[in-house]
């Protein structure tokens, strides 16, 4: 089981002080937040992707590569990478590069993005959001698994003899989570490929998420990847922790009341009652988080949203101390004790390498000499069979 944090990358005015951080300040803060996450013993750091103010994270792989250089253990991922407005070819290239630089300490979560105006900025149309997401992933999947891809689809130009470089580290593609909270097709795609399924678990009652998670588990089994309990499930969640529940409520309430998305709507207590949000002492947060397993079954990754709604950096860092120091150690112990035998391990590069090669050496693709193109002469790599005859040069 992996525990971590996910950031939306919002730059929000602090409703208590009235201070809005600059982009520079917030970007510097996120580096400190990620480093702190590792320091307090968390396993995962996830960053969102947005292309409009008030968000800063337009370029997740740049940020994650930087954090990779500042950390030793932390798994770096996204929440989410836009599979709709990004060209899947660029996703294949950028995230394979990130995978190399972090020595496999990364994966990624794919999402559609629901901000309509963003789509045309990248030449797309939100009305085609679902087929775009599905088709783009189908291509991405192949780009990381086949050295040479011929492909034709509806949403980007055809590819002839295309090789996405660099090939994935150890020729093992990055692990992929498909994030969705209302679309059965996305859950089906995750199940079909045996990938992970992630529910943000933030805005609605857990019954809402349970339906699609259960569907994903059934389809994971139907597609032959293993039993339902072996499916790989990740969950979001939201917590604000203080030594006492009254302190937590007092401190968090002004941020809750003006939070983007649900602010100025429900009362905090009602929202806590109805959604996975927990605001309270470490024990209260532990208790609430343990209910996730009861609702959704054993799962592999838990990410908390902690740095949003204008919470200042010092408070976020305190939250991480409490999360890593008092909450997560107990959750690890309790969830390990309750874990049903035979459920999947949380995905890591090492485990994927092991699964693919056993004790054998992983493949290390070495390109053939530059031929000036990517098309002639069969395989671009020395170790693979050519499907097209390669003629000896003079």
């Amino acid at each position: 089981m992996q525990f971590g944090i996910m950031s939306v990358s919002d730059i929000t005015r602090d409703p208590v002080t009235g201070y809005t951080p600059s982009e520079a300040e917030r970007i510097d803060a996120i580096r400190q937040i990620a480093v702190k996450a590792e320091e307090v013993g968390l396993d995962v750091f996830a960053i969102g992707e947005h292309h409009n103010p008030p968000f800063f994270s337009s370029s997740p792989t740049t940020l994650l590569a930087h954090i990779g250089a500042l950390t030793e253990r932390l798994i770096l991922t996204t929440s989410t990478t836009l599979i709709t407005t990004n060209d899947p070819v660029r996703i294949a290239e950028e995230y394979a590069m990130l995978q190399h630089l972090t020595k496999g300490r990364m994966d990624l979560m794919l999402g559609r993005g629901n901000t309509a105006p963003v789509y045309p900025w990248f030449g797309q149309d939100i009305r085609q959001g679902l087929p775009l997401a599905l088709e783009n992933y189908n291509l991405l999947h192949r780009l990381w698994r086949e050295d040479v891809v011929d492909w034709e689809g509806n949403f980007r130009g055809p590819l002839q003899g295309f090789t996405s470089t660099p090939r994935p580290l150890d020729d093992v593609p990055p692990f992929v989570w498909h994030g969705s909270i209302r679309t059965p097709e996305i859950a089906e795609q995750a199940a079909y490929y045996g990938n992970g399924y992630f529910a943000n678990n933030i805005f609605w009652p857990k019954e809402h998420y349970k339906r699609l998670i259960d569907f994903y588990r059934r389809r994971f089994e139907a597609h032959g990847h293993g039993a339902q309990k072996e499916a790989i499930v990740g969950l979001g969640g939201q917590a604000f922790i203080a030594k006492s529940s009254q302190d937590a409520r007092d401190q968090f309430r002004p941020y809750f009341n003006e939070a983007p998305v649900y602010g100025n709507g429900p009362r905090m207590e009602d929202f806590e009652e109805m959604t996975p949000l927990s605001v309270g002492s470490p024990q209260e947060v532990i208790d609430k988080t343990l209910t996730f397993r009861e609702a959704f079954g054993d799962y592999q990754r838990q990410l908390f949203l902690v740095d949003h709604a204008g919470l200042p950096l010092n408070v976020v860092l305190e939250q991480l101390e409490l999360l890593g120091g008092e909450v997560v150690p107990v959750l690890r112990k309790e969830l390990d004790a309750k874990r049903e035998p035979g459920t999947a391990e949380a995905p890591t590069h090492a485990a994927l390498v092991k699964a693919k090669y056993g004790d054998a050496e992983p493949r290390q693709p070495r390109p053939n000499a530059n031929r000036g193109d990517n098309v002639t002469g069969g395989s671009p790599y020395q170790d693979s069979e050519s499907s097209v005859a390669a003629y000896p040069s003079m």
Partner: protein
Amino acid sequence: MTTPVTPETYRLVVVSAGVSDPSSTRLLADRATQRAVAILESRGHTVTVTAIDLRELLPELPQALSSQLMGPRFTKAIEHLQAADGIIAAAPVYKAAASGLFSSFFQVLDNDLLIGKPVILAATAGTARHALVVDEEMRSLFAYLRALPVPTGLFASTEDWTDKALGTRIDRAATELAILVESGFARKVRDDSWARYQHTYGSAGGTELDIDLDSDMMRLATGGSLRDAAADPFDLRDS
């Protein structure tokens, strides 16, 4: 009406957006409901009535509007509407429109919650100048929801409460509702044509949970393609 073949149990749901107590809006809704119940019972049916006073849902309205997060009362109200065979929906008119509470409530419901369900539309106002709100505004809202408002809309301004003609119109609307309820129209639409309406996963008040695995999108989700090579006369791959 003729004697029914088989006695049925019907569920009527009253939605009232009146905010005073007693409320003339609620009163109008109740009169229509009582007539509809009497008519259905006279034909041998059993009728249960549930009243939803939208005023009681007010505390949950902000979250429903801002985050589609339905509180416990909203959820209960939606369950009742989902199961309703007929609906009596009544609003006070404010500023030449059905009240914001009334409109907001129906705006946050799933688009497919009320498909085919017979509805009596009723409104009250302080002046007869609002008389067309029922037919010009409320009716279009229910048309959007693909509900089935009865032909007679009910409107009562101050002077109508002493006018016998209001009683006649209530009788008319209640009879129309009873006939439509008894016809089983909504149930038949659900049985025979439900798939032809747009649904999203979990819509229709959380009841729309069937997943069609045999669709273009599901084929695309499982590695298929939307492209039909055969559709391109110059593409020789499939010939």
